[in-house]
Each structure stands twice: as C-alpha cells, then as structure tokens.
C-alpha cells in the first residue's frame, strides 16, 4: 500500500500515516528545500526537516500513541528537539497547538481538521510574529486554514477538507515567489529575496499534502 492510496477515518493510524508520508516526501524533496533556502537563506531547511522527520520515524517505530493528538504531540516534541533553526520551534509549536486543539478525540471530524490547521497557523504566528505577505510559511498556512474552514462549513468530508487545505497551501507557497521577505533570514536580502519561493511555505504545502494523501484525499 502506498501512503497516497490509504483511506480511512482520521484516527491515530491516520496521523501516523501522515507523519510517515511527510518523512518520505520531505526526504524526497530534501535537495529542493535546501536549494530554495540556499537562494534566500542558509541552505539548511531541507536538511533540518529531513533530520527532524527522520527522528519522528524512529520515535513512531518505538511508540504507538493512541490518539491523533498524542501522535502530533510526539511529533511536536521530536521536531522541537531535533530540527533547530527557525523551522524547529515554528513547526514544533504548530504541531503542539494542533494536538491541543484535538483534545482526546479518537477520530477527527471535518471541523476538527479545520480547527487543527487554524491552531497550527495561529501557533506559528504567535511564535514568529509574521503576517501574510512577509514571505514565510504563514503564507501557506493562512490560505490553508481559510480553505479548510470554508470546506468544512460547506460540508466537505475530512479528507476533502485536508485536500482543500493542501491545495491552498500549495498555491500560497507558489505565490510567495515575487514577494520581498520581511521575516526570517530571507529578509536580510531585501529586494534580492524576490524571485524565489519561500522554503518554509513549500515545506508546509508538502506536509499538508501528506496529511491529505494519508486520508485518501484528492490533491490536485
């Protein structure tokens, strides 16, 4: 079974599939993320995430948390202690807040998905103080959160909500290309930061894509 074909309820097993899928897609895109970061940063984003999600895989092999929230909390703690840089605390906070938003629910419903993504986004903003348009991962999480909310309110299934979020995140990441960075180390480049997609926005899209695929959602 390839991770992309998996379907089922958004339970703890889904969360584990999501994380395994993320590890795989991050590893496949390690060089791309390094390259994006090389252009406007310090060439480590792909390496950092690959190290972090590699550690997540090891943790998941040893541990089988029983709720989606427990999985995400384990991920949060692992990323926090292995990624470093800006992305470590930001993604760590995102997954921690996402976990908190889920409480002890066993299966995440559509509005739970939207709430989880909103919580993640808000956590990143609380830590990093970036606004939309600053050319950061917030430019992927914000449209993702909005799309998820809209889809959930329109009655979409949980996988559909995730797919909507992933697609919006992807569009958001692409849209960072012309922007001039105002947060993170790309901001040091001033106008020279324009013309490249933000690595954190791109990795956000990959992570949400993995979430949707783990749920069997169709991602464009």
């Amino acid at each position, binding site marked *: 079974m390839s991770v992309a074909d998996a379907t089922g309820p958004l339970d703890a097993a889904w969360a584990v599939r999501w994380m395994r899928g993320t590890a795989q897609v991050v590893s496949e895109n390690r060089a791309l993320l390094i390259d994006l970061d090389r252009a406007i940063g310090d060439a*480590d984003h792909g390496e950092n995430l690959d190290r972090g999600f590699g550690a997540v895989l090891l943790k998941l092999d040893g541990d089988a948390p029983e709720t989606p929230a427990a999985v995400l909390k384990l991920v949060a703690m692992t990323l926090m202690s292995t990624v470093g840089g800006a992305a470590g605390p930001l993604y760590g906070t995102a997954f921690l807040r996402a976990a908190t938003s889920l409480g002890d629910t066993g299966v995440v419903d559509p509005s739970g998905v939207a709430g989880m993504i909103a919580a993640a986004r808000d956590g990143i903003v609380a830590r990093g103080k970036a606004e939309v348009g600053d050319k950061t991962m917030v430019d992927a999480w914000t449209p993702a959160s909005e799309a998820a909310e809209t889809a959930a309110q329109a009655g979409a299934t949980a996988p559909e909500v995730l797919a909507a979020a992933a697609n919006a995140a992807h569009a958001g990441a692409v849209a960072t290309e012309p922007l001039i960075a105002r947060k993170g180390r790309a901001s040091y480049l001033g106008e020279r930061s324009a013309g490249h997609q933000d690595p954190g926005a791109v990795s956000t899209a990959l992570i949400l894509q993995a979430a949707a695929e783990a749920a069997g959602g169709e991602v464009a």
Partner: protein
Amino acid sequence: MKKLINDPRAVVNESVEGFGIAHADLVIVHPEPLFITRRDAPVQGKVGLVSGGGSGHEPLHAGFVGRGMLDAAVPGAVFTSPTPDQIIPATAAVDGGAGVLHIVKNYTGDVLNFETAAEMAEADGISVRSVLVNDDVAVEDSLYTAGRRGVGGTVLVERIAGAAAERGDDLDAVTAIAQRVVDGVRSMGVALAACTVPHAGVPSFELAEDEIEIGIGIHGEPGRHRIAMEGADGITQRLLDPIVADLSLTSGDRTIVMVNGMGGTPASELYIVFRKVAQLLGDLGVSIDRSLVGNYITALEMQGASLTILRADDEMLDLWDAPVHTAALRWGA
C-alpha cells in the same frame, strides 16, 4: 565539494569530539545532547554564560569556552541554531547559583530556541537572562527585516561579559554590561567567494571572478549587494564607513577593533585591511585601544572578512584586559 570531512552529517559531532580531545584541559564535551562546558563548571557563585548557535563559525562558540569568557557553548547543526533540549542542560550545567546569561545572536531560529530553553530553565528554578547581539550594519533594524543580525560583535560581548562574570558581577550587572557592549558594537562583512555547506554540497552563491558581495552575514547567505572587485583599501572603506556613521564615531573616541577572517582568507590579507582601518580611524582622531586580527567568527571556508568596532569605555577596556583562557583567545592566564 572538497572538505576534510567524513560524513556531512557527522561533521559537527566529529569536530567537537576532536576539539574536546585537543582541549581536554579546558573543556568537557557532553555528547548527548551535545554541548560543551568549561571543565570546572559550574563555578559556584559565578554567573554562568551560555552561548550557541549554528556550527560552521569556529572558533565561535566552543573556542571561547573557558575562564573569563563562556561557561558553555551549544553547537547546532551547520548554520542551524541548536535546540532547547541542548540549551536547557547546558544552562543547568553552568548554573553556580548566581543565574545564567544567554548570549544570543539575533536570528529567528536562535531567538526562538533560546527563548524556549530560557522559559523551561526558569521553570526548573534557574534565573536566566538573555542578551541579543545585533551588530550587523548591513541589515537595517526595521519593520521590514528580522532586525540586524548578530555577527562579530558576539566575540566582544562574550569576552567582556565573561570578564565581568569572572570578577563576580551579579546577573543583573553582567547582563547590563553585555547589553552595553551590544549597544556600542557594530560590524560589516564582505565575501570574495562563497562557502559550501557540507549537507548542501554546492557553494551558497556564485560570484564572478570580478565580483564581491558586500554586507554578507556569517551563514553563506548572499549579501546586501554585489559590486565589482576592488582593492583592499577601497573595500575597507566600504566596511568602515557605515559603522562609523551608525556609531557616530568622532575624534577622541576609543575603540576595540576586530578584523575577522571568514575562514578562507590568509592572515596577511586581514592585516592589510587592519592597516587601512588604522589609517582611516587615525584620520578621524579615533583611537584603536585594543585589537584582534584573525579568524574568530567564520563562515566555514568563505573567503572574505568582517570589521567589528566597539566604542569602548574604561570599564570595557579593563574587562577586556582581564585574564582569559580559552582555546581561541588567551592572555593573562
């Protein structure tokens, strides 16, 4: 990419291991999670100084662990700030009851990770203060940037705050003098050729044979702008002018000057830069009271240099002269 390394992912661990063997008289390397303390840590009653950040800037920070400077250094992956789970035990290991000062270079990653660590160490009952070094005049400190970067000034902050801690200043006083150095120190850098991050495997940027990058940081990132190659005197003027302007240096001011190599620049070239700095400051009536010329805060094997100037007062000069005994800076001890 040609480097004297084995596995790109093992660079930091193997290098720190070698460092620990070479300087076993001075430091202890704690491997898991990785941090380095002075051998006699914690020094009872002394404020502990912890700094850290991405690796690749050697001798910063581990090379500055020892008497009169840092109590602990926390190295992250290359160009990647360390994680709280390294910073927290390092903080605990050097707390001699008088609290701990975190010296943090102003990068989003460093700030967030040290912030988290400080919060958690405080929760464990350790008094923690932080000082943020942001001395790079190449970056405007504005709403449109993450603020000025912390670069060469860090070395001066670590030395002077380290001396203050060693003489017995309390946490507030050490924090205050560290902040005073931050307020009075500015830097500017130039790259002639980029460095190659081991896990990336290709140079961080490409420069033509007749181009240089002005206003670079210490992470192989491109600088503020690219100009045509010039002679050392002209380049030195470009590094000096914005610092003099930002600090409003005027006749009668006393300074500590550091001409720092980025890792791949011969000492002879750094002295040519220093010569011009001395001439230009002399013309302004500004005196160089102390100086460092060499590789102190590098970007792997980058070719280039940075200039750091601190407007110094009597207390700073006294603290500067106090004994220091680390792998990379040593006098009076």
